[in-house]
């Protein structure tokens, strides 16, 4: 029982950055832009959140810095893919490479060559029921599940902004002819998405670890790309997919310690979520309903 509760707690903790990233990517893709800059945006959020907190001594400043970096990264993707209309794959890969490069560069400048030598006092967990149970989580985790996810869903489903966002991602011509500003809506989606991705990255430095290391994101941005598809571009399904992935991750971490499981290569277990996503794509085949304007820059005739 303790084992299960611990597992559940760890799952929520591990899922938190994925929830931010997945919802951020969902917003970008629902507006019609595949944002492969997510890996770099999470990375930059992790670093600049940490750096700002370390320099000012304020975790709030760190969080705000991460948000600012995410907004800027989203705006850069908007400039490239919306205003200029470059290929989204190349723009995203370039953004990721650039943001990782900048983060590591500035890290070396400000904190020297050592990894994780500087530390900040991370956010303490909030434990309304006392320590060591499922509800022994960081504030950002509660925010992710109890505020962000419902809010993100509600905005998409119930507000004019959400309606416009979905429309420009599905049929920008129709949205344009109905009077929706396609470019502005896509920029907004990319910037909100970027901010969320960056906060997801900052969760590691500001809450979970309290320090910055060079492999801190380690492909979790790509994981989010997969989770978005696995969740069929829906907020709640994306959250569920993140939980599933995190549960597998938490399980392998726990099993790994046990002697009788030493023989199993846990990396294969970790690879499972990726393979499951690919298998899901095959099973649903062409029926996967990509946003209608996915990958297409909008250009008036």
């Amino acid at each position: 029982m303790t084992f299960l509760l611990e597992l559940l707690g760890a799952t929520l903790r591990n899922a938190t950055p994925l929830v931010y990233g997945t919802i951020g990517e969902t917003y970008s893709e629902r507006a019609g832009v595949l944002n492969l800059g997510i890996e770099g945006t999470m990375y930059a959020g992790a670093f600049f959140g940490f750096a700002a907190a370390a320099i000012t001594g304020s975790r709030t400043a760190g969080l705000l810095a991460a948000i600012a970096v995410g907004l800027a990264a989203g705006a850069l993707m908007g400039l490239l893919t919306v205003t200029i209309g470059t290929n989204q794959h190349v723009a995203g890969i370039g953004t990721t490479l650039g943001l990782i490069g900048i983060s590591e560069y500035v890290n070396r400048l400000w904190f020297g060559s050592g990894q994780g030598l500087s530390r900040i006092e991370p956010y303490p967990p909030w434990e309304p029921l006392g320590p060591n149970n499922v509800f022994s989580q960081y504030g950002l985790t509660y925010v992710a599940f109890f505020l962000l996810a419902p809010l993100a869903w509600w905005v998409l489903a119930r507000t004019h902004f959400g309606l416009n966002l979905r429309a420009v991602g599905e049929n920008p011509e129709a949205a344009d002819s109905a009077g929706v500003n396609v470019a502005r809506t896509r920029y907004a989606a990319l910037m909100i998405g970027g901010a969320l991705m960056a906060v997801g990255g900052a969760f590691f430095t500001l809450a979970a670890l309290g320090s910055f290391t060079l492999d801190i994101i380690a492909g979790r941005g790509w994981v989010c790309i997969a989770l978005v598809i696995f969740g069929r571009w829906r907020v709640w399904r994306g959250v569920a997919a993140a939980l599933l992935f995190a549960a597998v991750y938490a399980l392998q971490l726990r099993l790994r310690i046990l002697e009788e499981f030493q023989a199993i290569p846990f990396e294969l277990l970790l690879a499972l979520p990726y393979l499951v996503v690919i298998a899901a794509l095959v099973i649903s085949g062409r029926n996967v309903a990509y946003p209608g304007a996915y990958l297409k820059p909008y250009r008036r005739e």
Partner: protein
Amino acid sequence: MSIWRRRLWLAAGVLILTFLVTVPFLLMAGVNPFAAYARFLFVPLTSRFGLLEVGVASIPLLFTGAAVALAFRAGYWNIGAEGQLLLGAIAAAGIGARVDGLASPLALTLVLAGGALAGAVWALVPALLRVRYDIDEVVTTLLLNPVALLVVEGLLNGPWRDPVTRFPESPRIAASAEMPVLIPGSRLHLGFLIGLVIIAGLGFVISRTRAGLELKAVGLSPVAARFAGINVARTLVAAALISGAIAGLGGAGEVAGIQYRLTGGLSAGFGYTGIVVATLGALRMGGVALVALLLGDLTVGASSASRALGIPSQAGDIVAAAVLLVTVAMVAINRYGLRQNRTAP
């Protein structure tokens, strides 16, 4: 304005803009941007050692750049060169450790062939999913990259872990399986030549053979290619497999020529940099070779700048990403102008 004049302006614009975009980072480090760029680009070319190291740094990029460019020419968005390279490295390390008794040419050939085959196998599934079920290869090739890294880690933390030191490193490959060094006293190995030969070969195939013409037709207009009787699916699968094989060969080259074993940090994102190389090389093989050498120059130059000026060597990554984004942006603006997104009054 003549097309060459226009291209010259474009190139000048890219250089100036890239410089301007990266200046703030250099100033942040307190160095003169011009001095830094001189280090990045020119200093490695002024010494024999520097030139040779540029060659060494360019080797994996020759392979991944060529692999990505070939796939992109066919309209197949292979974002998975990273994973294919890692699979090639795994195969090379696995075979290399087991060919002790064999003569050198045979052992090396086995290692390289195994690497190419492994890369092709890793590229096969996404290609088949694309032509059979119309599944976006961007997502599938991308997702297989972390899986490949997990396979590497699984091997290094499991069966291949060094039994004595407990380091996550595979056993050293047999001496007979190592790439011969081209110039004694340097690290420049045979992989450099192999990469150039492959690039020249691909360039020849693309421009001179029937298969190359079909590849270009499929990439430029799949509908017209199909109308003309070209087998589009077969062309795509072939392009994907060859692309994977070349990336895998690049991984095998790093194992057999530099590391002599499989390590977790074998690839510094070579597969992703391959996308940069291919894009900046305009998907032309000559361009790929040139850009791979330039980025090799930049890599060596950045680490030289790091030692001489005390700026982090990641400045090279920033410059590479900046030149990529500036280039694609300028090319798109040159072709289409800026989007008209304003809603009518």
